[in-house]
């Protein structure tokens, strides 16, 4: 078989079978060699049982998303065969455990693919390793089918189990080797896949949550509070593990209500602090969001969306909380809402979020979704120094406060921003007050003061507006159809765009990373050149269309929406746009 530049691989089976770690090891053996890799995890809200799927796509070229079809499917149960068989390309492989399906032949189900029976248990037995390392057989098989280097697999397995000791490593490696050798020996006849060699440098393999975690660390986040909630929990786990190495305090608190108030307390005391949650937890944090706004305490809130309302579909994906984040909580106050489109953007944007939060003493909400939070994407590198820490008018030293004047925490200034003293300064004593207050911070109910303070807080928008980066334009400046989207949909759209531009139609794509303040001018300017446009998003009511209307009056008439808890596939976008 000829060398190919890209392939897709999928493993499926019941929960509790270690499918998630198998998939990650597989993805890593390619990202380590500099391939471009994207993955995707599907699992139900159950600990054991149910159907888990891990998909990986690998390419020597830049890729943004999975595609609908796969080259290799590893089926650890029959359900996987039934559900995913039709995704397998012609001449592709379906590897199954012949120890489970004794004497079964599946070829009749789909004659144009190669069903490969592999006796997992027997192979393991021979190596003397325990059964739980079984999935490594699948890894060995896969590497063999791809004509790939077994040593790469060995290296990643070794790395992965390095905390568990040499014995465990050996078991896993020998299981993998058994699978590898089995294919090499038993299936010499079949045409394998030749994945093209890759010569670029090793790549980072990151989820959106990893980007947030690394970015927040780099931004000097010192206090992280959270209450576990899928798909935000991995940020908590990362922070908890890093707390001693990076001098952070991580607190798994009693509820999201405690979380936001602890974080606000820490920020008031003078440190950068952050929280992350999903929709239900964000709902519980709403009052605290308003509290932060009124006391002008900076706070960064990561909102990892999942299908809602209520408990919804905890382990699936949706972009259903946008207008909620935009309008959340009682009363009126300035805020920033942003939505990175990939892990790299997550890394940089969360750092910008900290700067904006502190410069303007406002809450900043960063929106992800399960798709972005939990799936891995390769990136070539992250630059530590790109976003400089800017803590705005935070006062650290007594010398920086004029001793001849009273310290006014809520001093009315031209830009609306008042110098903010950290705790512990002799001359920085002040009240941060959730009541409406005067410049000192004292509760004050007069009409004049209320107006003055509302104006003070809102005048910050003048400067904030200038910081807001206009939407990104992908593709040619002029097109006959403009795709408009936000957040994580960026990735399947960019993948689809590889195939969309034909002789007949030219597409470009406006991607919103900043939602509030809405980049009105920039967007209107873009729209001047637009002849036909369509909003693509992962929800039912097209919240971006509504946001655009609310801010510009521009009505986008065409929408491509998906709200079944799954992210778009590029193929769906291509097909959907055909009709538009």
């Amino acid at each position: 078989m000829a060398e190919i530049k890209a392939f897709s691989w999928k493993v499926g089976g019941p929960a509790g079978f270690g499918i998630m770690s198998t998939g990650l090891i597989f993805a890593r053996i390619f990202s380590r060699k500099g391939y471009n890799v994207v993955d995707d995890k599907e699992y139900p809200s159950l600990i054991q049982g149910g159907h888990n799927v891990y998909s990986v796509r690998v390419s020597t070229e830049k890729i943004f998303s999975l595609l609908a079809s796969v080259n290799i499917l590893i089926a650890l149960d029959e359900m996987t065969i039934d559900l995913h068989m039709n995704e397998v390309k012609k001449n592709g492989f379906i590897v199954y455990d012949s120890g489970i399906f004794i004497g079964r032949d599946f070829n009749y189900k789909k004659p144009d693919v190669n069903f490969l029976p592999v006796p997992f248990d027997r192979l393991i037995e021979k190596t003397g390793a325990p059964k739980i390392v079984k999935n490594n057989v699948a890894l060995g098989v896969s590497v063999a089918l791809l004509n790939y280097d077994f040593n790469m697999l060995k290296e990643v397995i070794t790395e992965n189990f390095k905390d568990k000791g040499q014995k465990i490593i050996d078991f896993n490696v020998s299981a993998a080797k058994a699978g590898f050798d089995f294919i090499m020996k038993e299936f010499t006849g079949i045409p394998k896949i030749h994945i093209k060699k890759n010569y670029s440098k090793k790549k980072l393999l990151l989820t959106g949550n990893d980007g947030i975690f690394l970015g927040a660390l780099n931004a000097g986040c010192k206090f992280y509070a959270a209450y576990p909630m899928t798909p935000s929990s991995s940020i908590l786990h990362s922070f908890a593990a890093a707390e001693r190495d990076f001098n952070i305090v991580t607190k798994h608190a009693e509820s999201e209500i405690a979380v936001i108030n602890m974080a606000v307390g820490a920020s008031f005391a003078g440190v950068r602090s952050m929280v992350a949650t999903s929709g239900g937890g964000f709902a519980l944090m709403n009052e605290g969001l308003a509290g932060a706004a009124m006391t002008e305490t900076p706070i960064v809130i990561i909102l990892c969306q999942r299908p809602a309302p209520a408990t919804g579909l905890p382990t699936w994906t949706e972009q259903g909380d946008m207008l909620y984040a935009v309008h959340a909580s009682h009363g009126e106050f300035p805020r920033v809402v942003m939505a990175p489109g990939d892990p790299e953007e997550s890394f940089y944007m969360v750092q910008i979020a900290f700067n904006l939060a502190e410069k303007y003493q406002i809450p900043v909400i960063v929106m992800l979704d399960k798709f972005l939070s939990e799936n891995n994407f390769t990136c070539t590198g992250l630059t530590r120094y790109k976003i400089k820490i800017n803590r705005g008018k935070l006062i650290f030293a007594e010398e920086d406060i004029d001793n001849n004047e009273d310290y006014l925490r809520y001093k009315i200034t031209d830009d609306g921003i008042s110098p903010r003293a950290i705790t512990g300064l002799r001359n920085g004593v002040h009240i941060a007050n959730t009541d409406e207050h005067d410049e000192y911070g004292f509760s004050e109910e007069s009409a004049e003061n209320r107006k003055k303070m509302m104006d003070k807080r809102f005048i910050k928008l003048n400067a904030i507006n200038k910081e807001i980066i206009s939407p990104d334009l992908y593709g040619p400046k002029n097109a006959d159809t403009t795709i408009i989207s936000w957040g994580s949909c960026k990735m399947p759209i960019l993948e689809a765009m590889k195939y969309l531009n034909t002789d007949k139609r030219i597409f470009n794509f406006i991607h919103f990373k900043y939602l509030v303040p809405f980049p009105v001018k920039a967007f209107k300017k873009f729209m001047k050149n637009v002849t036909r446009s369509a909003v693509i998003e992962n929800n039912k009511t097209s919240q971006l269309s509504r946001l655009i209307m609310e801010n510009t009056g521009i009505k986008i008439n065409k929408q491509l929406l998906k709200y079944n808890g799954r992210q778009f596939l590029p193929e769906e976008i291509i097909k959907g746009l055909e009709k538009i």
Partner: protein
Amino acid sequence: MISEANNRKRNYNLKPADFNTKKRPTWCVGCGNYGIWNSIKKAFVELKLSPHEILIVFGIGCSGNGNNFIKTYAYHALHGMALPVATGAHLANHLLKVIAMTGDGDGVGIGGNHFIHTCRRNLDITHIMHDNRIYGLTTGQTSPTSNTKFKTKSTPFGVMEQPINPVALALICGATFVARGYSGEPEHLKNIFIKALAHKGFSFIDVLQPCVTFNKIDTYDYYKKLIYKLEDSSEYNSGDFSKALQKSQEMERIPLGIFYQIKKRTYHDGLEQIKDKPLVYQDLSSINIESLMKSFY
């Protein structure tokens, strides 16, 4: 900053009035909040604390309005949220003396969950609960500490539930210093405050506080008849948990004083990452995530 250098700059001749702001208290004439206000200021003076070394996180309520009347760092939190805010601030700057001042509704009503969880953490925080057994600021509804049968605006046919016993609750949940004070005994109260503030770990003081406007049951007269002081009995040993628990169940009369105090590792003592200095003083420019990034290869 609350540094050593700073300690030298300390003003040791502060008077209670130095803890006044330019705002005068607006509590009703005769309100028990005055007694608490006076006692805490005196305690600060005796402990030689300066305003910038203290953070008081207030709840929302008549008691919470005190944020305008005491000069220290202050955060006037949302209703029920004083303890989490205090927790975050303390963990970010554990050199501050952090106090949460809440009402009973604030403390064990809407804030009840934060109360039980804060107790079990043994954070080095002092929680002073102004317990008037009523919702004062919202003009007189039942509170979780209101006695059964109490008729209020929200319970015109009488409260149906058993009241929360804040002292017992704090004990069961792990507070390492648990006391009951009375705003009608300001000297005694001041002494409790001094000990609580000196205690390393979570200290809780349930302060009985007559609300002269909305609570016509738990009045000065009522308390006068029932209170007595634990320390008046030479037998009482505040180091004995079961005794303290038993004492907390006493209903016929009302014991005041320190029910329980024990030494135990505080939360922040367990945090190696802030052994050297509080989070707030850590240098952000030296952060290096390079090696961590490598683990994502």
